[in-house]
Every structure is written in C-alpha cells, then in structure tokens.
C-alpha cells in the first residue's frame, strides 16, 4: 500500500498483530512527544467506542424488542429517574475531566523548548518551505512528492530541535504528522515549536556517496505538510524529513552549507527549486502563474500599463527584488519580494541559469563560460590565499 515505504502517522498495512490494532502500537515512538499524544487518543477512542457500542446495542435492541404491534399498548414507564440521570451526567464528566487533564499535561511540554535545542529558522511562503540551519545551511536535496518537486530536510536523532517560524505572505501551518506536531506560521511574527526525533531513518552510505534509508522499502522518512489553507498550491507544500544519527547529521549540514563550490549554472538550477521559483515559473515552456523562463532571455517583455524591457541581468535582478514594480501583461501581481533572502552570488547564479535557457545558443555558451570562469577565478583566489 505504501509507495517507497513511506512512513506516515499510523502506517497502514504495517499492523502486524491484534495487539497493534488494540493500541495502534506501531509508529507511535517517532518523537518523544508522539507516544503521550497517542496514549491520550487511545484512551479517548476506547472510552468512546465503549459508550458507542453500548448505546447502539441498546437502541437496536429496543427497536426490535419494543417494535409496534397492532393492538398492543406500550407499558407505562418512568418519565425520569434521578439517580440514573445523575450517574450518567457525573460519570462522563469524570471521564472527560481525565481527557482534559491528561491532554493538557501531554500538551504543555510542546510549548516550552529545552534551552539546548538546536534552532532551525523556518520560512513559509506561497508555496514552499525554507529551513535555515544554525550553520547557515539550506537544503538542496529534492524529491518528487505528490508529483511536486519538494525539499528534503534532515533532523538529528535524539536531540531537541526548535523551529522558529515566520511566513512571507499569508498564514501557513507546519505539520509533521509522524511527530504529532503542528503550529501555525504567521507573517510579521515568529511562532515556534520543537521536537526530538527518536528513530533514525537514513544513514550515510560511503559506497553510494549519499544518504540512503536504513531499512530500504520500509521507512523513507516522514512527511511534512502545510496545514492552513494558503491559496492555489496549498496542497503541494510537502517536504520529506530524514532523521539522521548525529555524525551523519553534522555531515549533511556541512554538505548543504557549502554552495560556494557549486558552479553558478548548477547553483541557479538548484535555487530555481529551493527558493520556490518552480511553483510559478516553469523551465520547459509550460504555462504557470508566472512567465516561463524557457527562451525568455533577451526577449522584450510588455508590461501592464505600458512600458517594456529587455530581459537582461538588470531586469532579472529587479524581478527578484522588486517584483511588483513591473508586471508582465497577461500575469497577475502575485510575487512577493526576495529582498534580503538571496545573496549576490545567488542572484548571479539565477541570472546565469535563466540566460542558459535562452532560445539563442550563443547565450547558452556565454552562460556556461561565465559559470566556468567564475569557478576558475575562485580556485585561483583560494590557491593564492593558501600559497601567497
């Protein structure tokens, strides 16, 4: 039933015994928080199931036993029964008081992160997620989830992680079902939540030089989703969470942090996805919320309200930093600014990438050349720094 062995909240199909059905035993130990939540839920579930069965059995029994028979009058019965009514008011009250107290007790730790929690800054935007780790790393790993190019994030096993979250535009909500955590993410404001993952899902493989699932086909990590309606692609803000042992986690962060040795052209292609441009700008010519980048370099764009511009370095820069300034005819003013969210090198990388998608082969050559030249210059500068 699961494709790629993805593990999400209760993992259907992985219930191996009747005990599992009774307690939904599987997959509740994914985070330190999850077990407590599940126990409260199961308490509520079984209490509710007991009452439901009792009530429905009674109803069905009465419906049969006391069905109308012609000429037979129903026997008189009491119109009320104070002891019974008090009992069935007090007992549910007590049962629900337990739900409230236990539920609040399990909930409170979620609000207070430990002081030593590692901080990850989360930015939600229409329609994607960005996580910035303490070392400045941002994940460049991608995966296709629900047929959408989605990010892959890593978390350390057994250590607390605190997410400090904010939105660029409207309200979103960060939801990791397997960990049982969810918190709304607001614009112009920070909210936070934290978790401690308990089980590693991936490990570094020296042979393949990449991170692979620990149990191939079983647990491919956890899903993260947006849980507050935020517009068109609300249902396509998925992400994959990998949980790594500490050493692997540090290694992963280091790999992600260093974009300096990625050539401009390659980096541009990566940023197209990680920065979320892919939500609106295709690179294969298909129509989207924003103009496609394919073949756009060097053409002249006509703007709403008159005016036009050639698509060059300046235009690309303006489109990224001040998108509302000029809107191309046939499109809506929907893009939020990336001012302060892209470095100069990243801007150059995106420009180089767009140039490489031009219809003219000359532009592609120029882009490749620029990218290679920059890498050469960096190498030379690095060498000169070590060998003055």
């Amino acid at each position, binding site marked *: 039933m699961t*494709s790629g062995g993805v593990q999400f909240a209760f993992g259907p199909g992985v219930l191996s015994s009747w005990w599992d059905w009774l307690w939904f035993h599987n997959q509740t130990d994914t985070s330190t928080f999850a077990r407590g939540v599940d126990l409260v839920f199961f308490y509520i579930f079984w209490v*509710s199931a007991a009452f439901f069965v009792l009530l429905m059995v009674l109803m069905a029994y009465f*419906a049969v036993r006391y069905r109308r028979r012609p000429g037979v009058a129903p026997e008189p019965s009491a119109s*009320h029964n104070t002891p019974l009514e008090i009992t069935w008011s007090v007992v549910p009250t007590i049962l629900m008081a337990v*739900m409230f107290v236990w*539920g609040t007790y399990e909930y409170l730790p979620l609000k207070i992160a430990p002081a030593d929690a590692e901080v990850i800054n989360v930015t939600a935007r229409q329609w994607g997620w960005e996580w910035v780790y303490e070392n400045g790393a941002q994940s460049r790993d991608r995966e296709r989830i*629900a047929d959408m190019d989605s990010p892959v994030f890593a978390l350390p096993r057994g250590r607390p992680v605190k997410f400090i979250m904010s939105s660029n535009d409207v309200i979103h909500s960060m939801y990791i079902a397997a960990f049982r955590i969810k918190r709304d993410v607001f614009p112009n404001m920070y909210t936070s939540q934290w978790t401690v993952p308990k089980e590693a899902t991936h490990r570094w493989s020296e042979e393949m030089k990449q991170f692979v699932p620990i149990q191939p086909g079983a647990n491919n990590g956890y899903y993260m989703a947006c849980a507050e*309606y935020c517009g068109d692609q609300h249902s396509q803000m998925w992400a994959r969470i990998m949980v790594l042992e500490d050493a692997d986690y540090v290694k992963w962060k280091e790999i992600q942090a260093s974009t300096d040795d990625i050539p401009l052209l390659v980096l541009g292609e990566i940023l197209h996805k990680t920065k979320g441009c892919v939500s609106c700008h295709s690179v294969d010519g298909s129509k989207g919320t924003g103009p496609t980048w394919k073949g756009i370099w060097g053409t002249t764009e006509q703007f709403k309200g008159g005016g036009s511009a050639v698509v060059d370095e300046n235009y690309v820069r303006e489109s990224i930093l001040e998108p509302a300034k000029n809107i191309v005819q*046939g499109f809506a003013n929907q893009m939020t600014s990336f001012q302060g969210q892209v470095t100069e090198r990243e801007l150059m990388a995106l420009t180089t990438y767009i140039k490489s998608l031009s219809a003219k082969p000359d532009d592609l050559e120029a882009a490749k050349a620029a990218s290679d030249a920059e890498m050469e210059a960096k190498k030379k500068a690095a060498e000169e720094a070590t060998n003055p």
Partner: protein
Amino acid sequence: MSGHHHESYLAPRETLWKSIMAWVYTLDHKRIGVMYLIATTFAFLLAGVFALLVRAELWEPTRTIVDEATNQTRVVGQFLPGWTERGLPVTPNNAYNRAFTLHGAIMVFLFIIPAVPAALGNIFLPIMLGAKDVAFPRLNLLSWYTYVFGGLFAVWSLASGGAETGWTFYTPYSSTTNWGSTTAMVLAAFILGFSSIFTGINFVATVHKLRVPGMGWFDMPLFAWAIYATAIIQVLATPVLGITLLLLVLERTLRIGIFDPAMGGDPVLFQHFFWFYSHPAVYIMILPGMGIASELIAVHCHKKIFGYRAIAFSSIAIAAISFLVWAHHMFTAQTAAFNAVFSALTFLVAIPTAIKVFNWISTMYKASIALNTPMLYAMSFLFCFTIGGLTGPPLATLAVDIHLHDTYFVVAHFHYVMMGGTVMAFLGGLHHWWPKMFGKMYNEFWGRVGAVLVFIGFNVTFFIQFFMGTQGMPRRYATYVEEFTSFHKISTVGSWILFLGFLIHALVFAHSLVAGRAAPKNPWGGLTFEWEADSPPVEHNFDHEPVITHGPYDFESVVPPHCSEQDFPLHPAAQNGRAHGH
C-alpha cells in the same frame, strides 16, 4: 384575506395573479416557511453538486507526465479543468479551491443555518403553541426577502467566479486575494445574517408571548424549546458575524489594515471575531435538529420523552455554553494558558449533549416503535450524531488536537454532526410533517429505501475520513500523496450512494405532491397541536383556539386526536387521567 379563513393555506385564489400575490405579500408563517423550504432545498442541492465535484477531483491524486509530443509536462488525474479569469490562466487547483469554498459557504449560510428554523420552525412553531401566527408577521416576510436578497448576492458572486478562500475567510489571504468575487460573497453572508437575526427575534417573542393560555414553559413541545434556544443564539451571535464580515469588506475595499500584518494589523484578531459567531452558529445548526429528534422519537415510539426537563434545560445550557468555547478552533495559533481554558470549557458543552442522547435512547424503552421513514431517520440521527459527538472530545483535547487540527478528522467530525445530525433530522422531520404541510402521503417503501441509501452513503463517505485524518491527511487539499488514494476512492464512491439516496427522496416527494393519497389529520398519532389541525392547516391554523388538556407527550393516558383507540390503545395500568384529544 377575509374570505379565506377556512381554506387550506395552500389553496389558490380566484385568479393566477391573485394567487401569486397571495404568496408574494403573504404574512402567513406557513407560506413563508414553504418558500424557505423550497429555497433552502435548492441551496442544498447546489452545494451538494459542489461537494460531488470536490469528491470527483479527489478520486485520484494528480500526476504530471511528460507529453512526448510537445516535451512539456501535463497534469493527469485532475477532474476539474482550469479556466481563465480576467485574461489570466487559472490552475485546476484553483477550481478545486473554489468548489470547496462554495460548498461550505452555500451549505452554511444558505442551507443549514436557515433550513430547520426558518422552514420547519416557521411552519410549526406557532401551530405547536396554539397560535395563529408568529409574533411579527411582517418581520417574518422581511426576513424572507432579506434571505432572497442575500441569495441573489451569492448568485452574483458565483457568476463572477465565486470565492476560493475557504468558507472561513481567514485573513490575510481573504483580504488580499483577487480571484473570484470574494467581496460579493462576504456581503451575501452579511445580508443573510440579518435574515437570521430577524427570524431569531421573531421566534423569541413568539415563544414568550403567543403560547395558548394554560401552556406553561414546561408544557411546550421540545421542538419549541429547541427553536427558542436556537433563536437566542441567532439574536446574540449573528451580529458579531455581521461586524466581522463588515470589517473584512472594509479591509478589502478601504484597506483599513486591522487584519493585515503588513499594515500593523492582526490576522488572528479576525479568527477570534469569526469564531465568536461561528461556534455558536454550529449550535444554531444542531439544536433545531435535536428538537426534531425529540418529536420524531416521541411520536413514532408513542412514548413520552424520558427526562423532558433535562432536555429542555440542556438546550438552554448548550446555547449559553456555546458562546464560551470559540477559541478551540485556534489551538495551533495560541498560547498554552489560553488554550487550556478553552479546552476545559469545550468539554463542558459535551455534557448536556450526552444527556440528550441518553434520554432519547431511554425513551425507546418499553415503547411502541414504528420503524417507518421518520423513525429510521431518527435512529440514523442517533447513530451518526453520537459518532459526531464522540469525535468532539479528541478535538477538544489539546495534545490530540495539535495532531488532528486541519486534517480530515475534523472534516469527518463536523460532517457527522452537521449532516449525520442536522440533515438526517431535517429529512426525518420532512417526512414526519410532510402529510401535515401538504396534505399528501408519500410512498413509505421508497421513503425507507432512500433513508437506507442516505445512511449507507453517508457513512461510506465520511467514516473513512476519520482514519485519513489520524494518518495525517490535511484538509482543503486538491491533491495528496499516493498513500491516501484508496481512502479517497472509498469516500468518493460513498458520495455517489448519497446522491442516489437524495435523488430517490426527491422523486418520492415529487410523486407525493402530484399523486399521493390524501393525508389524514393525524397519521402518526401525535399529541402536539399540529396534529389537531387540518392536513394541510387552514389559514389561521385552527378553527377554534385550541384548549390545552394534556401534555405534549402524554401518550400513556391520551388517545391522540382524530385517531381511534384501536390504533393507539392505552395500557390498562395507565388508566388514571384518561382523556381524549378531540
């Protein structure tokens, strides 16, 4: 009007024009109720079509494939097409987003809030109290025309692309989006709110001032208690919706900035405003349904309601507590202390609700139960509403709600209470009072077939959604990860069974109006005043003002009016205080 006292309220006038005018200018609560019934049924069907579209879209998760011919990506598994608006291409997700928004908005504002009170309540509240009309007949007509006006606004919004914000209109998305015709839809809801307020004012005054002499508060039928409690909520809660929607319209048009964080505003303030109305609103939706359930069970079990006073008081308690719990819709947005308070208060409202369910089932003990269509719906109501009610506590529990908030668990919960509760009760009430309203019987066999199909279809559609929710399937999703495919397919098949059930009901009712046999005055053996009136009632409801000689549920000691003791025999042990209704 003077010559029509003894005709049925449905009787046509001398000329076609006069007949039409008799409905356009009517002050008769029954005719106003029938007009509401037709309009809300139409709204229900329209919103139902949107629901079918939503479920059709969710049959498969969408997939992009590379089209070999053009080497471009193409989306498959998508049912709703894209469209163009103002010259801009709009993605199919957007079409889905409009479908679920319109389903919610039309269902809430045009169907479920007005349907039971303004349709069945309008027709039967005055009759049950022994009155000739509601307290303010002209206000009643104004309420109806306000509803029509609001409905027209909604239609205009629909024609201009509707809205895609979700029926909850959360800011800043709803205050900034430019798709569709959000402002018109919000204005429609604003106008419809006034219709609800006018109805509420009318019913409160009616219950206070128009009861037949000798009918004390505890001699009223429980349907009247339910309508009264609902009317209180309508009067006190709806104005807050009014100001909320007004502020949203001003935010969109004048950019006043109180909800927009970019201008220093607070989007959570909107949520507080919105839910302060919308939580009591859900009790506006369910309380009348509970009132109907009391009537259905009492009459078709031919048994007095167990714990009459408990049910009456619990209705008022639910109405009062409903104002205290709104922030349980916002647990993922607030601080711990705030959340704890609202979690505790939310559990409070479950207690009177549970008491009602226990009382209804106890009523069936030592009863005489006729398993006809209304009773089948009463039992469907008990089954489904109990599930809906029992899935409330997981959402009220803080730790669990963090996981379940904004997932399909919530969707399943509210459909179980709103549809499994109110709609089942409404359908039961329709069948129960159909002979009285229209003077015709319906085909009982096909009525039961419809009821069974609706019950099965409903449960197939929504029960699986609880599991989707606990597995982490978020709501308002146009597409989803593949693991959920079979869940969604089951749910979609259920929606088709539901549709079939409703279709059968529609055909049964249509047939009844055209070719149904004439209904007797009291086909079910009820004891409340409407069963003393003609089927259908005369214009002023009764020829003589009814005299109260027995309680509304004194089945043990009273032979129902217009019925024979053979059909409804009295038990020898209950011979004290025997009386006949006339």
